[in-house]
């Protein structure tokens, strides 16, 4: 049995999928969390059921990509049942889509989700009457608390009903009439959302508070995680030393290559995990769409719209999901511009580079230097967006986004978001970063173990002239080359090469190196995503553009820093 889950954005479709299947799919409190259809399997009373969670849509008129995907799914794949999930606090608007679903003549169940919030707002719905009017079963649920799920499962086994509704005039009028018949609003109590919005959206305080949140996110990432980072660091050093002290080439490979290389990256696990925790709190609280409003004016100055803010913030975690999140931007030119500049937003993979270099060259101003690099990345992203929109992607943009109420993130959703992303980092450490440690170890130990005449030395010195204006030693050039695969590999390379960084580099060169690493090109995974979302032409453009910008900016930084 195949079931399609369809409804407006942010009504809790994915939360319901998790409740029904016990799955770990990512939810978020803003419209457009799910951008790709997700499938979850469950056995209900021994019956195999496939749930397909589709991106949220407001109508089926197929003006946007998501609407087309949903419509195609209904017509081509003909699911056995539609679960139409609606937000109980907002029945009339949600019914507009419900009434369009009637045309497909597929059995349906209406799920009135978020009943808890509706009740808090004094909204009561007569489910029985609604069920009679629509001719389909209506179930009340609270997806995040598992309320109503057993009843829904029983109803699913019964297979739903093909809806039969009389449309009076048009569907807008019909939706209004139905809502009038079944919804009763009692006096409302004061709402947490109103109080919070008074503060967070304040004319004068709104933007300072936004900046304060961003600042807190990064301080949280650095300061809270540092003791753990130090602990892991010393554990890996001891282990690497011990293994490589044993005799034999295999021990050298494992000790000087794998443990040292992978360890140099894994050290940052606490920082990265804490960053993901902070980001997930932003995504689940409902603050993200507020940032859309607060930042709109600034974003418009740079040719983007407030809508671009959500993917840009997500980019601080990882650019891959951030590039995918641009799908919910309706205007295609703004979408492409947002997606192209996203790699300039410094993701967690670049953090190790800053921590390493800022720690060596700016021990007393480490945090300031790192924060400045983040801000610098944002500035380059915005300026680039302006250039793209003025030159390549001209045109007016329109958008509208719904603001959900604030919600207190529940620990399970925070865990799912944090773990999924941290797991991705660990997988990368176990595959790409591990693989690269073997490659780099091999390059440094063959054909001779004298590093200057090894393959690594030869290759680095061969490419060094390209970066002559910045004056970097060959080790750094090799690190840049290797880091094209994944930015973590920059630090890994320097670690395996045993580079005495502070002895062979000046402070101005170090600054230029950090800036270059920040900008020089999207990692392979991000490039693949850009290709999938925008086509290979744009992904090639992204490489050339970012390399040129990085080269030029790093050079300027080096020169200016040397003069100061």
């Amino acid at each position, binding site marked *: 049995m195949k079931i399609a889950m369809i409804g407006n954005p942010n009504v809790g479709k994915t939360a319901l999928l998790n409740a029904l299947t016990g799955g770990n799919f990512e939810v978020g409190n803003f419209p457009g969390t799910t951008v790709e259809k997700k499938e979850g399997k469950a056995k209900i009373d021994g019956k195999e059921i496939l749930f397909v969670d589709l991106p949220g849509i407001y109508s089926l008129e197929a003006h946007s990509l998501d609407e087309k995907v949903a419509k195609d799914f209904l017509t081509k794949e003909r699911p056995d049942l539609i679960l139409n999930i609606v937000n109980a606090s907002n029945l009339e608007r949600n019914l507009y889509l419900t009434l369009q679903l009637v045309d497909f003549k597929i059995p349906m169940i209406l799920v009135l989700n978020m009943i808890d919030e509706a009740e808090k707002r004094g909204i009561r719905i007569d489910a029985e009457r609604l069920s009679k009017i629509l001719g389909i079963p209506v179930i009340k649920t609270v997806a995040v608390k598992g309320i109503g799920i057993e009843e829904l499962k029983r109803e699913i086994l019964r297979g739903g009903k093909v809806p039969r509704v009389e449309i009076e005039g048009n569907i807008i009028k019909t939706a209004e009439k139905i809502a009038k018949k079944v919804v009763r609003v009692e006096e409302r109590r004061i709402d947490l959302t109103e109080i919070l919005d008074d503060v967070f959206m304040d004319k004068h305080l709104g933007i300072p508070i936004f900046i304060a949140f961003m600042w807190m996110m990064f301080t949280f990432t650095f300061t809270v995680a540092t003791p753990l980072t130090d602990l892991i660091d010393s554990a890996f050093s001891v282990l690497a030393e011990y293994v490589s002290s044993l005799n034999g080439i295999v021990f050298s490979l494992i000790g000087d290559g794998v443990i040292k290389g992978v360890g140099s990256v894994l050290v940052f696990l606490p920082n990265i995990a804490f960053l993901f925790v902070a980001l997930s709190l932003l995504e689940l609280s409902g603050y993200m769409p507020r940032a859309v409003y607060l930042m709109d004016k600034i974003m*418009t100055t740079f040719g983007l719209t407030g809508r671009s803010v959500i993917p840009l913030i997500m980019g601080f975690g990882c650019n891959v999901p951030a590039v995918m999140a641009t799908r919910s931007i309706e205007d295609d030119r703004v979408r492409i511009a947002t997606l192209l500049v996203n790699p300039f937003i410094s993701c967690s993979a670049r953090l190790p580079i800053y921590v390493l270099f800022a720690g060596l060259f700016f021990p007393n101003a480490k945090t300031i230097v790192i924060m400045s690099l983040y801000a610098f990345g944002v500035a380059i992203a915005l300026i680039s967006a302006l250039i793209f929109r003025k030159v390549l992607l001209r045109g007016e943009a329109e958008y509208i986004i719904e603001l959900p109420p604030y919600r207190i993130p529940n620990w399970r959703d925070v865990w799912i978001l944090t773990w999924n992303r941290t797991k991705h980092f660990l997988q990368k450490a176990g595959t790409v970063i591990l693989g690269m440690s073997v490659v780099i170890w091999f390059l440094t130990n063959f054909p001779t173990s004298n590093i200057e005449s090894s393959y690594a030395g030869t290759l680095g010195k061969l490419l060094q002239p390209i970066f002559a204006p910045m004056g970097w030693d060959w080790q750094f050039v090799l690190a840049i080359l290797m880091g094209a695969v994944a930015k973590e590999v920059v630090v890994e390379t320097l670690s395996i090469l045993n580079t005495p960084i502070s002895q062979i580099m000046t402070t101005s060169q170090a600054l230029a190196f950090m800036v270059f690493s920040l900008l020089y090109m999207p990692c392979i995974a991000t490039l693949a995503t850009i290709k999938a979302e925008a086509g290979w032409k744009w992904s090639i453009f992204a490489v050339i553009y970012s390399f040129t910008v990085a080269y030029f900016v790093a050079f300027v930084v080096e020169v200016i820093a040397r003069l100061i």
Partner: protein
Amino acid sequence: MSLNSKVPLIMLREGDEGVVVDIIGGRGAVSKLLALGIVPGKKVKVLGNRGGAILISINGSKFVVGRGLAMKVIVHAKQKN
């Protein structure tokens, strides 16, 4: 603002109220707004208008509407005393 004026939504100031009377513009914009419940006859309140996108409340939902789109929603502005 003149009495009983019909103006684009974007002209309203923070705190102003009005009633949607028309949506002008292409089919895309119209059907999108309709699907979101922004339809003629609905009361709308402006919660914020500071030069960027406009923040409105309609039907018990809040929306951020880009300035371009907010030009296309024509409202009957309620007179404030």
